[in-house]
Every structure is written in C-alpha cells, then in structure tokens.
C-alpha cells in the first residue's frame, strides 16, 4: 500500500501502525512522488491519501489531482482519503472523483486499519473479477445528459481498461470485447486514445 501525506512525522507514525499489522507500506510526500510510485508499482492495492499537500496545503487541489490521475492511469488501487480538510465538502469531492473511503483527521488507528482491510477486500474482489474477465467501472453521470452520454463514458472506460490490460494489443482487446479490430480502431479515434494514455 501507499501512504501519501506531506507531514513526515504523521506518515512515519501511520506507517508504523500499518507495518506492525503486516502491511507492506510505501511512502510519498506529494502528488508528483505519489504518481511516480504508482507509475512504477502496479501491485499497490490501497492508497491512504491526504488531500492538502504542497504547494496548496490548505486546499484539496493536490489530493483530488492524485485521485483523478490514479483514475486516468486506470490503476486498480483503492483510495482512502485521510484528511483534515473541511469534512463534508472534501468528502463529497473525493468520492465524486473516485475515492473508495473517507476518514477525517484525527481518526483512530483501528478505524484506519479497518478501512484498509475493507479496501483490500474490495481490491481483491476486483482482481478476482478481472481474472474472470470482468471489470468494475465507476461512472459519474448527470441524469440530464441522458443515456447516450452514460453509454459513451462507459464505452470509453471499458475500451481504455481492456487496452491497458492487454498492453495495447488491438487484436486481443477486440477478442476480449467481442468486437472486430476495426471497431477498436474506431474507438481509438473516437476517444482519441493513444498508447501512452492507456
């Protein structure tokens, strides 16, 4: 798992709590270092994330950017937000961006551990689903936009996910999705998907 917090002392204390319970913990102190770790470590299952980090320690910008980037990377990690920011507002924003859980500082060690356990459970479940050829998609849809917008977002996410899983192999992706290769090329063009994006 990955701990992302700019407060070194807090990171260290939290790491100790989790280490003692047998978790393998990596650390990052800002958005940039967090994304570097995530880019290299595909197997990270859970991220504990502070929202307020440099250079905007008193706003949620940086933390939300990490959630968005994780989602764009199609990284399977479950994100638990642990923050001292204004609770209601930041919880809503974090969940909207795709966070799995939200804890307010100060949180009890036991609550954090329970949240981590839950997140790992869901992560394992997702992995098992993936092994069976299923994937979980999160869609933020406005009802007013209608079904077409939802369908297109779902299509895009699914195509991106499968392309990522197959290492951008069009032939395999088409086979997994039960489509012709031409259809995959059509989606690549439609959603402007490039190899680096997947």
């Amino acid at each position: 798992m990955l701990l992302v917090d700019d407060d070194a002392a807090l990171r260290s204390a939290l790491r100790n709590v989790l280490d003692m319970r047998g978790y393998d913990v990596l650390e990052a102190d800002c958005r940039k270092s967090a994304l570097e770790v995530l880019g290299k470590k595909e197997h990270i299952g859970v991220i504990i994330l502070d929202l307020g980090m440099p250079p905007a320690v008193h706003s949620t910008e940086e933390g939300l950017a990490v959630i968005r980037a994780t989602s764009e990377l199609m990284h399977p990690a479950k994100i638990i937000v642990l923050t001292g920011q204004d609770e209601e507002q930041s919880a809503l924003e974090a969940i909207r961006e795709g966070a799995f859980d939200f804890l307010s500082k100060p949180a009890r060690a036991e609550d954090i551990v329970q949240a981590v356990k839950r997140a790992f459970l869901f992560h394992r479940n997702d992995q098992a689903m993936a092994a069976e050829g299923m994937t979980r998609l999160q869609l933020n849809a406005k009802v007013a936009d209608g079904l077409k917008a939802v369908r297109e977002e779902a299509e895009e996410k699914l195509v991106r996910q499968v392309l990522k899983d197959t290492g951008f192999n069009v032939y395999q992706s088409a086979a997994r999705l039960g489509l012709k290769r031409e259809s995959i090329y059509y989606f690549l063009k439609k959603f402007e998907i490039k190899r680096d994006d997947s």
Partner: protein
Amino acid sequence: MTTVDLYPYLIIVGSSILLAAAWLLHRARAQTQRSQALVQLNEGVRFDLLDFLRQCWPELSAGGFSGLEWKLDWFGASVTGSQGAVAEGVLHKSFAVREIALDIRLYHKTRGWEQRYFSQVLADKFFLLLHMDIWIKLGTVSGAFDQTAKMTVFLQHDMKNLLQLVSLAADQLENQVPGQEARLLESLQTTIPAVRDRARHMLKALISDQNMGQPVAVSMAPTLRDTATMYELDIKIVGEATVMVPKESLHSILENLLGNYSWQSRQKSSNPTNLQVEIVNEADAVIVRLMDINGKPCLWPERLFEPFWSERGSGRGIGLYQSRQLANAAGGSLEVNALSDRPLQFVLSLPSANGVSGM
C-alpha cells in the same frame, strides 16, 4: 441730483457690503475651524462612534445649535443621548447599516438665515463623519471576523495533524500488538519528539510571526531554485549573491512569492508560468527582480500588499503583506513594479552578506 451727491450713499452701501462680506467671511472661517475641530475630535477618539457622539456637543453648540438628541442601536444594544435644549428648527438624519442604526436630531438656535446656512454646512459634515464612523466600525468588525475565520481554518489543519499524531500514539499504546513492543518503542521515539516540535512550532506561530531567528548568510540562487522546484515552476536565474537574513524569513518570503505564481500557473491552461529572476549586488543590498514573462499585467497592483485581501478564495490574503513585513524586518524591502502593458515585477531587496560573490 449730481453724481457727487450720490457718493455718500455709495460709500454707505459699499461699506455695508464690505462689512457684511467681512462678517460672512469671519463666520465661514469660524465654521471651518469647528468642522476641523470635529474631524480632529473624531480622529482623537479613533473613529469610535459612541465616543464621538458623547464628546461632540461643545463644537456643535459653538456652531449654532441649541440641542442634540440621538438614539443608537449598537449591535443590538440601545443607547440614547441628549445635550442642550430642544428648539423649533430641527435637522434630522437616520443611518442604518447592518447591526448599527442611528437616529439623530440637531436643533437650531433661532437666528437668521445666514446662521442657519452655516449651521447646515456644519451639520452636513457632522453627519458625514457619523456615517463614516459606522462604516469604519463595521469594516473593522468584519475584517477581524474574516481574519479569525481564516486563522481558525489554518490552525485547525495543524491541530488536526497534531491530534492525529497523538491519537495514533495513544492507540498504539492502548492496543499493543503482541511481540511488537520494541517496534512500538521505536515508533514512539519518533512520534513523541515530532509532537513536541509541532506544538512548539504552532505556539511560536501563534505568539509572533516576526520572530524568525538570527541573520545568517544564505545563497539566493540555490534557495530560489529549491523553492521553485517545490512549486514545480520553471525558473531562469541570472546572477548570484549571498544575503544576510534570518533563513526562515527568506524561506517564508520566497514561498509566499512563488506560491502565488504556482497558484496562477495552475489556473492557466496555456502559456505556463516562466519565471525570470535577476540577482544583482547594489552597494550594501542584494536586489532580486522576479517576473513571469508569460504573465499578464496585474489588474489590482494597489491591493497586492493589502492584508486579508486575496485573489483566491482559499488564501489568507496575508502572504505578500507578511513577506513585505519580513523583508522590512530583515533590513530590506519588497516592492512591485506594475505597468498596464507588461507582467508584474517583484523587486526584493535584502542586506548583502560579507564576501558576496558577484554576478
């Protein structure tokens, strides 16, 4: 009747006009002096409406009024006052702004029209001062609340982190994992000193923002480069010099300056922030000129150093104000060059250290 026969009359008329003009001039000067006295009194009571109302009567009385009555709703409390005597002629005014409402009556002494005219002029100035005092009071109250609210948010953030640290330490002690006692002790050896340092830091911040330590020699270019890296800003530095300032002050100044550029950079979709910095030695001072060459002209340069004014909602609005205070306290200055057709340029001047390296 010849023209010569008219001379005595003309002299009488002319003298009368002259006397009347001299008298009116005298009255006007007297009223001007009373107006100024009211302004001075208002400044003397520091624009406090209640004190001003209670102390203004001698000047008003000398200015031709027979009586004063006022009723004030002062943040929910009702206060009244009266001086002198009620008369027939009255000047009435009411002000109501947010939590302050004032109803005031000034009574004329029964005198001629010219007296009433001069009294009216004095009354208008008096009412203007009262209205101004109301706005000053409300502005002060509102500013203080805004400041407190913002400080509370910032302190809450630090307090929550501190409490989280303490909470984790306490939880670990209460729910020890069997066989991990040595690990727990090791963890507490890191956590507890961190808690102590954090609490000290917060206390220091609460007591004084200016207590920034002793001046030391600091190289400007690497410090600027490190700060820019932290904020992920592109920076080009020309020149180098060593300044003699409290290190924390310099870090705070640069973090505030570059932090603002970082925020602006995140708002822009095109033309990323490109900071050009020039460092030069001038006599005993080091001058640092800083500009985003892709920036736009500043629309409100006059507000840049105004405390508690912020372009961004999440800001405290004291960054640049505090930076200027820190630069001044260190024996330097922080100025801004703002032109309507080019990006803003900050000019930071700091004391030069001995053994300065040149450009």
